C-alpha cells in the first residue's frame, strides 16, 4: 500500500475538525432549538472521532490495551445522552410556554 494514500491520524483529525466547524456554525446560526441541539451532537461526535483516532495512535505506541481514548468516547456518548434528554426536556417546557422553538426568542429569565 502506498504511503501517500495511507490514512493517517491527521486525516481523522481534519475530518473531526470539519465536523466540529459544521457543528459550531449550526449552533451559532440556526434559530430552531432542535437543530441547535443536533449541531451540538455533531460537535460531540467530532470530539469522539478525535478521541478514537488518538486511541488508535496511542495503541500503536503503547500496545493494544491502551484503549483510553475509546473509553473517553464512551463517556462522551453517555454525556450526549444525558444532554439530549435534558435539552429536549427544556425544549418541551419552553415550547409549552412560548409556543415557539426559536432560540432567539428565549429572552426571558422566567415566565
Amino acid at each position, binding site marked *: 500500500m502506498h504511503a501517500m494514500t495511507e490514512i493517517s491520524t491527521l486525516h481523522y483529525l481534519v475530518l473531526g475538525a470539519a465536523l466540529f466547524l459544521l457543528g459550531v456554525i449550526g449552533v451559532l446560526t440556526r434559530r*430552531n432549538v*432542535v437543530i441547535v441541539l443536533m449541531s451540538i451532537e455533531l460537535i460531540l461526535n467530532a470530539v469522539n472521532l478525535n478521541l478514537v483516532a488518538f486511541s488508535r495512535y496511542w495503541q500503536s505506541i503503547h500496545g493494544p490495551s491502551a484503549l483510553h481514548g475509546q473509553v473517553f468516547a464512551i463517556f462522551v456518548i453517555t454525556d450526549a445522552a444525558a444532554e439530549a434528554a435534558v435539552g429536549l*426536556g427544556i425544549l418541551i417546557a419552553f415550547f409549552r410556554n412560548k409556543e415557539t422553538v426559536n432560540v432567539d426568542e428565549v429572552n426571558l429569565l422566567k415566565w
Partner: protein
Amino acid sequence: MNPQVAANPPVATPFFFYGLAAIMIIGGILVITRKNAVHSAMALITTLLAQAGLYLMLYAPFVAGVQIILYAGGIMVLFLFVIMLISIERTLKERQFNKQWLIGIVAAGALGGLFIAVYTTTSKGGILFPPVGRVSYVEAQNTQGVASLLFDLHTGTYMFAFEIASLLLLVAIIGAVVMAKKRI
C-alpha cells in the same frame, strides 16, 4: 474462543475513509442547512452511522456498537419523538438563521483557521500525526479491553468515573422528567 490476531490488514482503507468522510461531511452540512428538523435528524443519523463505520476502521468495534445502539437507535429516536411532538408548520416558513449568522460564520471560520494553523505547523515536524501504524492487535478482545479499563478490579482506571456517569444519567432522567412533565 481463541483470541484472533488480525493478521490481514484492512483493505481499501482510503476508499472507505474518503467515502465515509464524504457521507459525514454532506450529512453534517445537511443537518445545519435543512429547514425541516426531521430532515436534519435523518441527515444526522446518516452521519452517525458513517461515523460508526469509521470507528470500525479504527479498530474500535465496541465504540461503533455503542454508537449505533445509543446514538442512532436511542438519542436520535428521542430527537425524532420531540420533533414530532412540537412540529409546527409555522417554523418552516420563518427565518431559519438568526440575525448574527454572519458573525457566527466568521467566528467559525476563525476557528477553522486556527485548526488549519495548528495542524499545518505541528504536522511539519511530523511529531504529532504519524500514519496510523499497524499494531499487533488482539482484535477479539477490544470489548474485553474496554471493559477492563472500565471496571476491572486491577486495571479499572475509570471505575469511579464510570459510576459517576451513572449518577449523571440519573440526574439527567430526573431533570428531563421535571422539565417535560406538565404536572408532576
